[in-house]
C-alpha cells in the first residue's frame, strides 16, 4: 500500500515537473526510454552528470563575468555550452534564463548579464531540488533498481 502510494506520488511529481515546464516531456521521456537492465537508473545518472558538469561551466562563466575587461564573446560561448547541456535533460526554465543571458551578452550589458546569470542559477537550483526529491521518492517506492 505504502509502496503504491509512493509510486503514485512519484508519478505526480513527474507530472508536475513536466506541467510546470521544469522539464521538457519529450526529452525526459526519451531519457526514460533509455533505461534498461544495463542502466536502470539512467535518468538519475544523467541528471547527476549534468549537475556535476554545471559546476564547471558556472565557474567559467563567473570567471568571465568578473574579469575586466569583460569578454562578451567568451561569456556567450560559455553560456552556449551550458545551454547545450541543459538541452540534454530538457530543462526548459533554465534554458529560458540562458536565452535571456545571451540577450544581455549581445547587448554587452554587464549588469544585465550578472542578473540574468543569477536567475539561471536560481532555476538551476530549484530544478535540482525537485529532481532530487523525485529520485529519492522513486527509490523509496521501489521503482529504482539497484
Amino acid at each position, binding site marked *: 500500500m505504502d509502496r503504491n502510494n509512493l509510486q503514485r506520488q512519484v508519478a505526480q511529481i513527474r507530472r508536475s515537473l513536466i506541467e510546470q515546464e521544469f522539464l*521538457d516531456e*519529450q*526529452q525526459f521521456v*526519451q*531519457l526514460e*526510454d*533509455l533505461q*534498461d537492465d544495463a*542502466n536502470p537508473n*539512467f535518468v538519475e*545518472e*544523467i541528471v547527476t*552528470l*549534468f549537475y556535476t*558538469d554545471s559546476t564547471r561551466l558556472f565557474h567559467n562563466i563567473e570567471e568571465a563575468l568578473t574579469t575586466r575587461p569583460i569578454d562578451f564573446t567568451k561569456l556567450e*560561448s560559455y553560456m*552556449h*555550452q551550458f*545551454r*547545450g*547541456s541543459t*538541452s*540534454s*535533460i*530538457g530543462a526548459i526554465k533554465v534554458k529560458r534564463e540562458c536565452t535571456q543571458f545571451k540577450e544581455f551578452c549581445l547587448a554587452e550589458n554587464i549588469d544585465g548579464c550578472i542578473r540574468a546569470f543569477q536567475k539561471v542559477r536560481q532555476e538551476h537550483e530549484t530544478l535540482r531540488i525537485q529532481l532530487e526529491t523525485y529520485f529519492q521518492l522513486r527509490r523509496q517506492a521501489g521503482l529504482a533498481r539497484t
Partner: protein
Amino acid sequence: MENGFCSPRNDTFPAGLRVLVVDDDPTWLKILEKMLKKCSYEVTTCGLARDALSLLRERKDGYDIVISDVNMPDMDGFKLLEHVGLEMDLPVIMMSVDGETSRVMKGVQHGACDYLLKPIRMKELRNIWQHVFRKRIHEIRDIENHESLEAIYMIRNGSDHSDDGHLLSMEDLTSVKKRKDIENKHDDKDLSDASSMKKARVVWSVDLHQKFVKAVNQIGFDKVGPKKILDLMNVPWLTRENVASHLQKYRLYLSRLQKERENDLKCSFGGMKHSDVSPKDPSGSFGLQNSANTQQNDVVNGSYRFSVNNLLVQNVDPNNKHEDESIVSEPTAEPERASNTSHLPDPHKTKNSQMVFNHSFDSLESEVNLTAFDSTIPTNYSWSEVPEMEFNQEHKPLTSVENGFSNLPLLDPPHHIHVDQLQSVSSTSSKPSSVDRGITGPVNIKPHKGEYGSSQVNCVTSTVSTTNSFQTKTIMVNDQALEPIYTSTCTMRTQGFNQSRITDLESTQRNQTLGNGSPFVSFDDELRVLFQGDCYGVDLGLHNVDFPEYNAPGHIDEVPFHLYDSLRPSYEYLCETAEFYNRSTTIHSMN
C-alpha cells in the same frame, strides 16, 4: 567490386555500425552513447576533437561514421569535419544546440552529411546509417567508372598514336563497355548487398607513396597500370582499386607539375578574371548541368559547350590561333582535400596538356571517344593564365552534376579551373582520369601561334585540380600532345571564327586576371566573344547523363563516367550536334 573487406557486422547492417561520437559535453556524450547502443550500433565516445582524430588515424578503417558537436573547446567542429573528410573520408554528422541557418549551411559547406539539432531524437540517430550506405554506393560507382576508364586508357595506350588520332575504335569501346556491363551485373548484385561491402580506406602515407612512385617509375609512366604498380609495390593489404585511384590523382598531380613548367605560354587572350566564388561546397554536388537550372549553370553549360565547340572547331585556317578553344572550367575540389598526396604542388597550377585535334572528325570513333572521355581533359587555356582562375560567384549554384561532370565542391582558394568534361573529352590524349569532385577537366586551349596546321588544333588541356589528387593523363600527354587523340565528329564548319573574334577574346581575356579563387570561372565574357561567329560544336551527348551527387566531403571523387552508358550512335550524335549548335547560339545571348 571486390568485396574483400566484409566483416561480420556487415551481415546485419546497419546493426553494428561503428560510430565515433565527439562531444565536449559529458552529459550529451553519455546520452548519445546510450541512444546509439540502443540502435545496435558500436559506439566509441570522445570528449576531445584531437582525441577523436588520433583515434581515427590509429584505426584507419575502424569507424564507419563520425558524429561531432560543432562547438568544442580544443578544436572547431568544422575543422574536425574537414580533417575527417580529407584524411579518412568518412561521413560526418554535425550536432549543435544552435540551429541557425548560417551555422547549418557552414556545416554542409564543410562537408557534413547531416546536421542535427540538440536535443537529438532517437529516430534521427536510427537513420544515420543511410549516410554510410550512400557513400558506399557512390564508391562502387566510382570504382566501376574508374575501372572502365582504366581499361579504355589501356586500350588507348596500346594503340598506335597515329596522327590520325583514332584513339579507340568502336570495337574497343564496345569491349570496354561489355566489360563494364559484366562488372555492373556483378556489382548490381553487390549493390543490393552494399551494406556488406566495405571499401578500405587507405591513407597514403609518405612511405606508401614513395613505394608507389618507385613502382611507377620502374614500370615507366607510359605503361603504368594499377595492376602492375600493385604487384611491384608488394603491399599485401593494398588493393588494385586503391592504387588505381591513387594513380589517377598522381597523374593529375604530374600533369599539373608539367603544366607549370611549360606554362610560359601566354595565351593571347590574357588572363581571366574571376571573382571569388562561393565557399566550398564539400557536399560535392556541384557540377555542370546540362539542363541549366540556374543562370549560372546555363552559362557554365554554355561555356562548357562552347569550349567543346571550340575544340572541335578546329579551324582549318592556319592562322587560327587557339581562340577557338574556350575555357570552361569548373571549380575543382578543395585543395585541402589532397591531403593524401602530400607531394602535390600548389593546386592552383593548372597543368595543361596539349592535345592535337584532328580535322578528321568524321569517324564514329571520335564521337565515341568524346563521350567516352568525358573526364575532364583540360585544354590548355593558353591565352590566359589558366591555372589560377577565379570563378564568378554566380557560378556557385551549380549543385548537381548532370552532365557527368564531376561535382566540384566549392573551395576556398585555390580554385582550379576545370574544364568541363566536354572539353576533357576532346583531350583524349589524356586518360580520362577521374576527376576531382570539382574537376571536370579544365580545358585550356593553348594557342600555339602558328603551330596550327591547317588541320590541327592543338588543345592543351589541363586539369586543374585543386587537390593534387587527380591528374589527368592528359597531362602526360604533353609530349604526346600531337597524337591526334581527339577525333571527333565535330564538324569543322567553323568558318565563324576569324581573327577579329579571336582578338576580342584575347583582349577580354587579358583583362581578366587569374587568381586563386573560387572554383567558378565565369566565362561569360569570353564565351560571348568567342562564339559570336558560327560555332559548330560537337554535342558530346552528355546531356542525358546523370551523375550522382557527391556528398562526401572533401573526397575527391572520381568522375562518374556514366557517359559510357550514354554512348550513342553517331546518327543521334550528329543530330544532337545540330541541336547543340542551335542552342549554343542562344546561350551566347544569355550572357
